[in-house]
């Protein structure tokens, strides 16, 4: 296919040194870009105790425990090395200072005092699914998840509707002020949300939408990117199709939703993907609009949770993984659409 820019002619079998360098670069990239995410996912399956282990392991190892007769709770297992004896597995009953009280599971009645440096924990591979299950029981996690899903779905549907309506008018009608409207919409691309943060807060407050999910949904449903993307696509739909429908006395509204919308499906799909990502990942607007706990989105919950003094990392990590999961799935299945869509429109 492409003749690459760095290479000179090379044989089919021999690897040029620039090829080697390229693969090394890609491999370093893979570790730097994927490594941290993988580390996060693996860590999220560790128990709180396993997270505290030092040095940390990549796979989620947890200390083995065993129920010993005479004790209600399962006891942690250790490998005990004592002078002149073969190492043996013992359960720990308790610990005072530098001495641990251990018991041999085979002889539950005999306890032995062991200095703690003579024992090492016995670990096994164990995925702590509890981190995930507990989120729904111990925290208001279901609520945060619902808020995020609600905002994402409703905002995306409205975005598709509003933007396609505007794009339809801008691509299929000749009306006075059409150019001006288009320029006005496109010009909002140059107004970053950060610089109108304070007045947007006032407007949302004035509309009574503070601490309401609609306060996050409504400001976001008109996007210049969406209008632009859809208009470009609709321009390629032949006007003859619309004329034929008009002959059959179809109303303009019907032409819009029965003819133009279905034909714009590819562009709508790209916008839908973008919109889902924008809304799911949104942070600054929800941060100022939603201040009450029960309206938090996942992003806000994560932020609030990580700021707490005694961060329970095992839960925080699990919450982070759930938050990145939908976007990761979308990407895994629709990678090609996303990358070509972005490369074509130059938007993110």
């Amino acid at each position, binding site marked *: 296919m*492409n003749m690459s820019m760095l290479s000179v002619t090379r044989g089919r079998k021999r690897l040029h040194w620039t090829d080697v360098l390229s693969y090394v670069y890609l491999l370093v990239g893979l570790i730097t870009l994927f490594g941290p995410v993988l*580390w996060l996912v693996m860590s999220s399956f560790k128990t709180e105790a396993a997270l505290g282990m030092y040095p940390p392991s990549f796979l989620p190892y947890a200390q083995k425990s065993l129920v010993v007769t005479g004790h209600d709770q399962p006891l942690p297992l250790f490998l005990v090395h004592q002078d002149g004896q073969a190492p043996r597995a013992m359960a720990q009953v308790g610990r005072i200072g530098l001495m641990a009280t251990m018991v041999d599971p085979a002889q539950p009645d005999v306890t032995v005092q062991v200095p703690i440096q003579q024992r090492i924990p016995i670990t096994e591979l164990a995925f702590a699914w509890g981190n995930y299950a507990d989120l729904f029981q111990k925290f208001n996690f279901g609520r945060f998840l619902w808020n995020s899903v609600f905002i994402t779905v409703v905002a995306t549907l409205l975005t598709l509707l509003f933007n396609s309506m505007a794009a339809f008018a801008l691509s299929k009608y000749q009306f006075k002020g059409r150019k001006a409207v288009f320029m006005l919409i496109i010009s909002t691309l140059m107004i970053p949300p950060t610089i109108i943060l304070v007045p947007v807060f006032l407007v949302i407050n004035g509309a009574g939408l503070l601490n309401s999910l609609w306060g996050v949904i409504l400001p976001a449903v008109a996007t210049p990117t969406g209008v632009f993307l859809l208009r470009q696509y609709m321009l390629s739909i032949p006007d003859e199709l619309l004329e034929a429908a008009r002959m059959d006395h179809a109303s303009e509204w019907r032409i819009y939703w029965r003819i133009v919308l279905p034909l714009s499906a590819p562009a709508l799909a790209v916008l839908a993907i973008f919109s889902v990502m924008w809304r799911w990942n949104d942070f600054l607007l929800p941060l100022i609009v939603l201040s009450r706990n029960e309206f938090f989105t996942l992003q806000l919950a994560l932020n609030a949770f990580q700021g707490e003094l005694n961060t329970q990392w095992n839960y925080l990590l699990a919450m982070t993984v759930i938050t990145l999961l939908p976007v990761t799935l979308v990407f895994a299945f629709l990678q090609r659409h996303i990358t070509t869509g972005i490369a074509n429109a130059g938007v993110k």
Partner: protein
Amino acid sequence: MRIFALFFNLLEPLFRWAQTSLGKHRLAWLFVGPNLLVFGIFTFLPIAIDFVYATSGGVNLMPLERPFTGLENFQILLECRDYSDLSTCRKDVFWRALFNTFKFTVLQVGLMVFFSLVTALVLNRKILGRGFWRGVFFYPVLLSPVVVALIWKWMLQSQGVFNAALALWDLPAIEWLTDASWAFFWTVFVSIWAHMGFYTLILLAGLQAIPQDLYEAAQMDRASPWRTLTRITLPMLMPNLIVVLVLAAIRAVQIFDEVFVLTGGGPGTATTFIVQFIYQTGFAEQIHLYGLAAAASLALAGFLVVLTLLQLRLTRASEVGEKVPR
């Protein structure tokens, strides 16, 4: 699907009535109406209010009930007793945020565009599994800023994997996020990590648009790879490079989310940037100084306008269209 059809059918009478009473051409306004309404209320109206806030004082949220103070907010922001010493400024945090943002933008944009370019060049070669590698480099772009920050915070905390690695080599642990210089380094690094894939993609599209016969001609002339790169690839890619540079700069100036979660602007003001200053002044601190926050917003807006005009100027000069930020 049926529910959508029902929805559209319900709106049918409204539009049919509008069509007969307004005529087909004025009906267009009904189609663009919802969009314009949202833009009007949530974008254009706020811009107007921004000016009212910036030129009025007090803590009242209602624009009309605020006393007019002219340019006082800007004066408060900019006033220093001695301009060679930032701590004598009335709002020294603003100056520090300004300085940090400048330093961040120069470093982050420079390094990120360099690495994006190298990555795009590598991805444009004949390599096995190009789609996979492109996906690898692009994936972090999709992650939310909060998630990005937490991924790195988890590794950079004092008991994290980095310090474990140091301990393995018998080196002392480093407080990556509470040491001022390290914290700044990581804000730059993490933001490059998160955003570089986007720029790589734009540059890759540019590389693929370079006509192949140029390379064939270079090959006939036995041009060295280095000469081919500097005499053909880079000049041909220049329009895309300019777009990427300015886009990245516009974004870098507005850095907030990742850093806010990663370092909270600290230690001290080491990683406090201009948007965080706006957020703190207007929302987070006890007394909400909307006027001051709006004045800082307008200063930021002015800077962004300059950057945007620069982009338009440069892109027009090199004739590239339609690469616009959201």
